[in-house]
């Protein structure tokens, strides 16, 4: 028996970064907003307090802050000739859970995409010709430009207090910043973080090789900061427990440390936690959402009617919920038709380990932070000539080692036994003198016809709904790019003085057990017409105009950066369109 609740102006599904941003913007319009969140409420002092947060076993190994696969899983296969099987322990990516979403456990590397990333297809075609792209690559332009998003990137950085050095201020290139970045309207709100020895050494070596090194833009703050909402963040203490962990010091930008203190004070906002939305309801025309149905932790089912539905879940769950709700047309890889599930992408990560002379180098890797780092951008996007290389895309390269944690960060040279006294001795000899930058080459991931999401025909979740099926493999373009970037990174390690370098370029097939990043993208992409996208340029569903779908599920393909800055900029951009256009005249904001 479903209990029907009183109508709300807006229902938001998921209270992570995008849900918090949209809720805050729309409550400012005096709308009555409810957010429905699958996971629990999370607070700094009670859920990841300074007295026990630095527990690698609890959070990194046992995944305390993450969704448990028993609650909701996915199935995986490399290609359509295989039968997908359920993923029973997260590996290649981590799926957040609870208020704050992935914004609780991210590293806070806060990048903007390049202007050319938003017009990738037309840019590459113009520069290298239409035949340069592989036939099965389905990349496309976003329908939105860097200039459209610039004010919204700015809003997010000032919300977070992002620490960095500007490289391009209103078109004027700045010393010490990233000269390849799009023009920014003002400097970062706080100065760049201090860097560790290994990070500093990387910057010096890169400069000697002719590159322009710059500090990674960071949401681990270099100093205390009070944002425009009046919320204060603290200074990062370099404890090295960021990714997979919540920040105990209020020093990492997250919904908890930037928006929620203000949002939760508003009388026209309410969050219902431990409540999972099972479908978006449509009226009998199928063109209008009437609200959502959700189940609370006691198993009771509710219907929450609303005029406006904002889907703010993680990328995978956004796509699954659209498919389960019968919104849009499921993608068909045989015909290439249908939009929901199309252009699923991830990130092409690679690295090389650098072993240094222990008598000369001491990197103190435990003094660290999730977005501490020194980077170069010469090999990202189309900042370099791809003509002779035969691939598209790239990524930033950097010494972005985030931690020296004792379970995970224990690289030893090849040939060392995997356990016993010799392993211990090798670890002891190398722990302080190894550069172990997991995200050294942060490569893009282009879209392909045969990489997609759909509903699994066999496996079901605890509500009896089909699991989402991931069909994903690495293509030659990504493998070539990864090898190329890994070589460039290795050259810099060499210049830094490494005595032994162990290259780890990305190899196929795609392995769902090996951590890459949690940067899953696509599946409900934005574009300029309903024939090539699920959403218009304002993230509004082409099929159901009172539904907006936030998050990286809207990325047509993934660039060579961490996605959160762009996810948030799109959320502010979408919120601005809802506030300035949609509310005055509810209906499609772009006429197909």
């Amino acid at each position, binding site marked *: 028996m479903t209990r029907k609740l009183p109508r709300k102006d807006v229902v938001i599904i998921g209270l992570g970064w995008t849900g918090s941003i949209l809720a805050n913007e729309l409550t400012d319009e005096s709308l009555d907003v409810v957010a429905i969140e699958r996971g629990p409420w999370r*607070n*700094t*002092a*009670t859920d990841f*307090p*300074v*007295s*026990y947060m630095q527990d690698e076993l609890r959070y990194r190994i046992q995944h305390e802050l993450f969704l448990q696969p028993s609650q909701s899983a996915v199935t995986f296969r490399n290609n359509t000739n295989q039968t997908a099987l359920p993923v029973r322990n997260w590996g290649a990516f981590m799926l957040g859970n609870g208020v704050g979403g992935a914004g609780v456990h991210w590293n806070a590397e806060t990048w903007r995409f390049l202007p050319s990333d938003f017009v990738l297809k037309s840019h590459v075609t113009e520069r290298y010709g239409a035949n340069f792209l592989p036939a099965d690559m389905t990349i496309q332009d976003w329908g939105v430009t860097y200039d459209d998003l610039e004010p919204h990137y700015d809003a997010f950085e000032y919300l977070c207090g992002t620490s960095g050095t500007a490289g391009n201020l209103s078109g004027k290139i700045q010393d010490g910043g990233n000269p390849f970045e799009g023009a920014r309207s003002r400097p970062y709100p706080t100065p760049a973080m201090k860097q560790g020895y290994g990070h500093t050494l990387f910057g010096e070596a890169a400069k000697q090789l002719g590159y322009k090194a710059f500090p990674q833009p960071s949401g681990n703050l270099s100093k*205390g900061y*009070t944002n425009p*909402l*009046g*919320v*204060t*963040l*603290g*200074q990062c*203490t370099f*404890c090295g427990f960021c990714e997979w962990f919540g920040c*105990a*010091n*209020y020093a990492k930008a997250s919904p908890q440390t930037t928006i929620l*203190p*203000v949002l939760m*004070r508003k009388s026209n906002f309410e969050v219902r936690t431990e409540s999972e939305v099972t479908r978006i309801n449509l009226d009998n025309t199928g063109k209008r959402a009437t609200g959502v149905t959700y189940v609370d932790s006691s198993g009771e089912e509710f219907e929450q009617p609303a005029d406006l539905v904002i889907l703010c879940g993680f990328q995978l769950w956004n796509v699954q919920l659209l498919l389960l709700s019968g919104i849009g047309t499921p993608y068909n890889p045989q015909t290439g038709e249908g939009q929901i599930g199309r252009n699923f992408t991830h990130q092409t990560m690679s690295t090389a380990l650098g072993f240094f002379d222990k008598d000369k180098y001491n990197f103190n890797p435990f003094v660290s932070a999730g977005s501490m780092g020194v980077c170069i951008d010469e090999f990202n996007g189309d900042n370099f000539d791809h003509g002779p290389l035969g691939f598209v895309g790239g990524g930033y390269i950097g010494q972005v080692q985030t931690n020296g944690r004792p379970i995970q960060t224990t690289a030893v040279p090849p040939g060392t036994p995997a356990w016993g006294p010799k392993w211990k001795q090798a670890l002891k000899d190398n722990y302080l003198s190894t550069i172990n930058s997991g995200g050294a080459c942060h490569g893009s991931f282009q879209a392909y016809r045969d990489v997609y999401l759909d509903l699994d025909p066999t496996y079901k979740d605890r509500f009896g709904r089909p699991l989402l099926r991931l069909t994903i493999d690495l293509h030659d373009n990504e493998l070539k790019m990864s090898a190329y970037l890994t070589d460039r990174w290795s050259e810099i390690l060499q210049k830094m003085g490494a005595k032994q370098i162990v290259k780890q370029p990305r190899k196929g097939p795609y392995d769902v057990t090996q951590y890459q990043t949690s940067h899953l993208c696509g599946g409900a992409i934005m574009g300029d017409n309903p024939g090539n996208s699920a959403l218009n340029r304002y993230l509004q569903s082409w099929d159901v105009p009172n539904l907006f779908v936030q998050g990286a599920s809207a990325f047509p393909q993934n660039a060579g950066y961490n996605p959160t800055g762009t996810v948030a900029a799109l959320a502010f951009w979408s919120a601005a369109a809802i506030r300035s256009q949609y509310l005055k005249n509810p209906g499609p904001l772009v006429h197909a």
Partner: protein
Amino acid sequence: MRKRLLVLALLAGVASLGVARVAGAEAIDAQKFDQVEKGHYLTVAGDCAACHTAPGSSHDFAGGRVIETPFGKIIAPNITPDRVTGIGAWTDDEFVNAMVKGTGRNGAHLFPAMPYTYYTKVTRDDALAIRAFLNTIPAVHNTVEPDQLPFPLSIRAGMIGWNTLFFTPGAFKPNPDKSAEWNRGAYLAEGLAHCGMCHTSKNFLGGDKTSARYEGYDLQGWFAPNITSDKRIGIGNWSVDELADYLKTGHTQAAAASGLMGDEVDLSTSHLRDEDLKAIATYLKDQSAPSPNQAQSLPSDQPIMKAGAQIYADECAACHKSDGKGEPGLFPALRGAAVVQQADPASLLHVVIRGAQSVSTKPAPTGAAMPAFSWVLTDDQIAAVVTYIRNAWGNAASAVVASEAGKARASLAERND
């Protein structure tokens, strides 16, 4: 200060004997919006809701909050206009007398958990304005039996003697030697805001210890700190603006309100006008300190200080910093902080053992919280780190011993707030 109340109980309000109306009083007129608005403001200034609205209740002023006193429990009564269970049937004079004389409807004496010893300073016009406001709130039918005290404390006639000893009735008299601002501050602080209710210690009968005015008081697991102008343990180093800002926002660059004061800021002072807050601050800053307190810092080479320094570095320094300066506007400074140097370490122990949530206000919404350390630190370790904080960076206060930490741990474990 939510449950600040101390000694005995409140409004009885049972019998229905009428009391002759005092002639000449300004009548309440429901159409006089100015009066209702003023009454609303004064009701907030008096923080009436702290006791008369049950925690988490959506029925404002319908009573039900249990007030702990050293003598037993008292339940704050229903003061909505309900004629049977509230004060709807009370005459205005009965209402005013309850506020300023501490007498209930039938003439019975209230227990001074109701701060009539302070409210007696309130002018009749202001009291009537509060009544005018209370007349406008929704009547809630909610029977409250306020009196939970054991015999013989429950005998209200006993209050006659108590009042003789400790109650000086009479409206506020301005001091012509002081500024209008100072006098406005005095009127509020000594009257509706009833600061001394928490910040002045009580004698064994629960009366204000006039010899120790504003020198702090131990209540409900906290020590409401000294607010005299003592520079080490009072507010001598706070500027008037800082103090006014603290009352407005719950925060300064160096301090944060939590616990009972957090509630006070949340429900009352954050809603007051800037000029009233500045007036209160001006008045409080002018309250003399007792003879200078010459506490000496414990030497840093004492074993307890060395142990405390190590624990501080491991558990505290990430937020409060090695130099004890904290993070401005986020994590309170401990260096030079009066609150950690109080003679009674109850608040410091409370925060270490149980953690604390700082208040979130509109101008300072962050509301950062301190986690609990009771599960990770032993009594010896708590005593050491607290002693260190009380004596590091030029701070000076008595050492805390493990048995004090243990006692605080045990009594806090019993609290359900």
